[in-house]
């Protein structure tokens, strides 16, 4: 298993609370927005980056109640995080699975 795959598994496992998951998808959207705003207004980029940290750290502190994934895998966490968000269509897939499961029961 590659380092990235290991870090990804760790990232997925440490983001199981639905609210924390929502906050991290939001964080990833803000991170993308921050990159785009860099070409328009650096201050908006700064605001976006501040919010990414507020949402990500807040999600772990108040909902997931564990340490953020970057503590263990600092080098690749942003990549695993984005990979996870794209894989799950920024939360749409999780919502889809949730409602399917409810219907089944």
């Amino acid at each position, binding site marked *: 298993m590659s380092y990235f795959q290991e870090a990804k*598994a760790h990232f*997925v*496992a*440490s983001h*199981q609370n639905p609210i924390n998951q929502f906050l991290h998808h939001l964080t990833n959207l803000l991170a993308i927005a921050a990159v785009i705003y860099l070409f328009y207004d650096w201050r908006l980029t700064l605001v976006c980056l501040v919010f990414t940290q507020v949402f990500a750290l807040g999600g772990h502190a108040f909902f997931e109640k*564990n340490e953020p994934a970057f503590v263990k895998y600092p080098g690749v966490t942003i990549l695993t995080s984005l990979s996870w968000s794209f894989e*799950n269509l920024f939360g749409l897939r999780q919502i889809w699975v949730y409602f399917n499961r409810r219907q089944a029961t």
Partner: protein
Amino acid sequence: MYEGLLVVDADAHKLENPLVMRDYIEPEYRDRIGLVVDSLGDQRARVVDFNPATGKNDFMRMFPQPQGLGKGGFRNLHPDTTLGAMFNRVRIEHMDQEGVDVQVIYGTLNLIFSSILDPDLAIALCRAYNSYMADDCRGYDNRLKPIGVLPLQDVDAAVAEMHRCVNELGMIAVAVAPNLPIPHPKAPAAFPEIRTCKSISHPDFRPILQAAVDLNIALGIHGGPGSYMVGGLADHMETFVLTHIFVQRNQQQMALARMVFDGAFEQFPSLRVGFLEGGCGWLPDLAHAFHEHWEKRIRDFDPKHPYRPSLMEFTKLMIQERGGSNNVNIIGKAKNLFDLMWNTQHDPTKIDDASLYEHYDLRHRDPLEYFERGQIFTSFESDDPGPAYLPVAMGEVGKHLACFSGDYGHWDGVLQDCVKDAAAVTDYDREHLRLLLGGNALALYGERLRQSLPANTPSLNVARP
């Protein structure tokens, strides 16, 4: 004497002469025990026992058990020692020939007494045997030391008989069975064919252990095949060869384990017990198992806080092993499994059940201490390599655990060169050999043996490590 060292046979045997034994049995019990020859021409004791099904004394039993799982022996008479086991004149000649100074003598028929269902008959037979043996071994320059036998079926009678054996008959110790067969709770009607047992360390038997401490005598635990005692693996063997491979050591192993973990050695720190005729080579392994289980399941065991992995770590490993592009389902499944295995409804910290604390009152004592303080002894026979490696496996204490036994009188005993062969198993140093041939037996049987040794016996220092 072997090269100037005292030799004590710590577990020799008597073959009870039925003609003589009969004279010692109270008249009302005489017709309830006799000698018969089975269909294969072997001698058996025929006992008319109490029948739990009818409530009368009409249960015909044969000992040792001639057929079936756990069967007893056949063609069991040793060509060299049978007559000596019956007649002491021959026995003494053999002792002189082999250099055995003292024989501590257990019986043969008496080894089944604890399986008799009628307590009154068992008491009568024990009393008869003990009186017979005391008379039989008297004289001979104190070289023959008969061991009394106790009826476990009646604890009060057993304690009284112990006092009689020591104080009136002058015996140096008593023998008890490793266990008393009792009905199995799942099949009480099938008793004694299907059975469980009360081990000698059972709380009911504690007065017997207390009496042994009060009298400062050793308890010699001696089992036997085909006796209807619980015999471990032997109970599942249909040939005598297989039965006999397991029966003695399994009975002793079970008795020893129960003595340790039932807290008998803890309650009676000066009690000395000989676990006899089961060899000694297995002792390091069993002692290690005692220590390991005490350490991991008693001393360090915390039933209130069992291991509980983190959900995150558990999920991560699930993803690593089974994950793919869709990890949402994996997470759900991992969470469900986690909740099933470590659910909050059965929070271990909130469950208070005494059965979780097994042997909790022994948490302060490593079972190995019972070996070191001289409470546990075993025996070895002349061709047994066990004593040579006990010190290798257990350290210095390993020299102080095994007592020489010729098993005189039984089919598997050795007469010719028995002492010489025992001494030559390996290159023992003289101190170690002194312990094996006599010193350990003196430590086991204690002052009553030491004070009644034959004249001209070398004095021995039997200090513990």
